[in-house]
C-alpha cells in the first residue's frame, strides 16, 4: 500500500501544473470571447485562487512521494482520529 501511495504522489505532483495549464488556457479563450474588464477580473480571481491550491497539490504529491503519509498519527492529543 505504501508503494502505491508513494508512486501516486507523482500523479499529484503533475496534477497541479496540469490544472493551471487548463485554467490559463480556458481563461485566455473566455477573455478572447468576451474581452471586458469583468471577464478579466473573474478569471483573474480564479487564477489567483488556483495558484496556491495547485502549489499545495504539488507539495502534497511531494510529501506522498517522500513517504510522509506512510504512517499517520492514529490519535490526536485528545483521542483517536477516526
Amino acid at each position, binding site marked *: *500500500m505504501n508503494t*502505491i*501511495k508513494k508512486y*501516486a504522489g507523482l500523479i*499529484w505532483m503533475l*496534477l497541479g501544473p496540469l490544472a493551471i495549464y487548463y485554467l490559463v488556457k*480556458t481563461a485566455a479563450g*473566455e477573455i478572447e470571447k468576451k474581452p*471586458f*474588464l*469583468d471577464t478579466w*477580473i*473573474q478569471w483573474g*480571481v*480564479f487564477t*489567483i*485562487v488556483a495558484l496556491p*491550491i495547485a502549489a*499545495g*497539490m504539488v*507539495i*502534497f504529491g511531494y*510529501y*506522498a512521494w517522500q513517504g*510522509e*503519509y506512510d504512517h*499517520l498519527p*492514529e*490519535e*490526536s*492529543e*485528545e*483521542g*483517536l*482520529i*477516526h
Partner: protein
Amino acid sequence: MNQEKGIWKVIGASSLGTLIEWYDFYIFGSLATVLASQFFPKGNPTAALLSTLATFAAGFLVRPFGALVFGRLGDIIGRKHTFLLTLVIMGGATFAIGLVPSFESIGFAAPIIVLLLRLLQGLALGGEYGGAATYVAEHAPVHKRGFYTSWIQTTATLGLFVSLGVILLTRHALDVNQAKSIAKFNEWGWRIPFLVSIVLVGVSVYIRLKMKESPLFQEIKDSGNLSVNPLKESFGHKTNLKMVLLALFGATMGQGVVWYTGQFYAQSFIENVCKIEFDQSRTIIIWAILLATPFFVIFGSWSDRIGRKWIMLGGMLLAIVTYKPLFQGLLTLSDLSNQVQLTGLKQIKKTTSVIPGTTDTLRILTHQYYFAEGAIQTVTVKDTAYAAAGRVTIKPDVKSFTQLGSSAYWKMVGLVFIMILYVTMVYGPIAAFLVELFPTKIRYTSMSLPYHIGNGVFGGLTPFIATLLTTIYTGDKLAGLQYPIIIASICLVIGALYIQQGVHDSSKEKINNA
C-alpha cells in the same frame, strides 16, 4: 446529567449563530437578480464590474482569508470571543445591505457600499464555521464528537432552507394580489430578509455572550501553552501542513462539490435547464432539505461507531456513480414532449401597452398549455411594434416555464432528496474529522482554511464551471456534471489511499492536553 444539559446549551448557542450566518450569506445569493436590478444596472460596465467582484471575490478570495484572520485570532484569544465577533460582523453587514439606497438614488456609491458589505460577509463566514465546530467538539465527549458536531453540520443546509423560506414568504405576503406582491417585493420587499437578520443576530449574540470558553482551550491557556504564531505552526511546519493538505485534497474538496451540486446546482438546473417555475424550483429544494436534514445527525452519530472515512467517501462514490442518472431523471420529469396535451384547455392572452416616452408598443403574448398529468406550460413572447415604418423586432424575447403536476413534482423532490442525502454523508461527519486531525492550540486556524477552500472555492466554483461546460458542450445538458464528478473522483482516490481509518475504542481514550 448536568454535563449532558451543558452540551446541549453549547450546541444550541453555536448552531443558532452559525445557522444565522449561513442564512445571511445565502440571502444575498438567492436575491442576486433583484439586487442586480437595484444596485448593478444592466448595460453599465462599472456596475457590472462591481457585481462580478461582489460575486467572485466574496466567495473565493475573502472566505479563505477570513479563515486565516479569524482562525489565528481564535487560537490566540479564544473560540468564544472570535466567533462572537464574526457573528456581529456578519449580522451588521447583512442588516446594512438592507438599508443601502438604490443605484437610482445615490449612484455608484450604492454598488460600492454593497460590494464592501458583501466582502465583510465573506470574511465573517470564513471565521465562523471553524470556531463553532471547534467550540462544540471541544465540549463534547471524545466518543460522541461525530454526533454532537453533526448538529453544527445541519446549519449550513438549514441556513439555505430558512433563506429560501423567508424569501418565498415575503414575496407572497406583501399584497393579496400575487402579481402586486411580487412587484412590491422586487421594489422594496427584498430588504425585509436582510433587515430581519439583525433580530436573529441580536438573540444569538445574547445567548453566546452567556457561554463560557471551550474547556480544552481554557486548559492550554491556563497552562501557558497557547500558540504564539498559529499561522506559522499550522502551515509552516511539515508535520501539520501535510495534515492540512490531506484534509483539503482527501476530504473537503470532494465534500465541497457534492454539497454545492446537491443543493445549488440542482436548484439552478431545475430552474434554468428544466425550466420549472420560480416557486416550484425552490419548494422542491425546501422539501428535499427538510426530509434529508435528520441524516446529518444520523451519519454524524454513525461515524462515532464505524469511523468517519468511509461514510464521507461513500457519499462521494455514490455521487460520482449516480449524478448523471439523477439529473437525467430531472430532465425526463420536466420533458413535456411525451405528455398528453389537453388542447381544449389551451389559453392565449395578448396584451399591448405603449412604451412610455415613445410611440412604440410593447406586445406580450402568453400561451398556456395544459397536460393530462397536471403540468402547465407557460410561454411568453415579448416584442416591440415600432411606430416607424419598416422597423421590426429582430428577435422577440421568448420565455418558457413549466408548473409540474403533483406526481412529477414529488418525484423531483425524491431525486433532490437523494442528492442531499449524499450531502449529509460527506458533510455530517466532517467537522469531527477535521477537529480530530489537528492539535487544540492551532485547531481553529488549521481546520478553517482547508474547509473554506474545499467548500468555498471548489464547491463555490461548481455553478460557474458547470455552466461554462454547458456552453462548451452545447449538445449535452449534463456536461456541467463533469466538474463535480472529476473533483469528487480525485478526492475519493486521495481519501481512500491516504486517510487513516479509525474506529473509536473507549479503552484507548485519553484526554491529554498537556
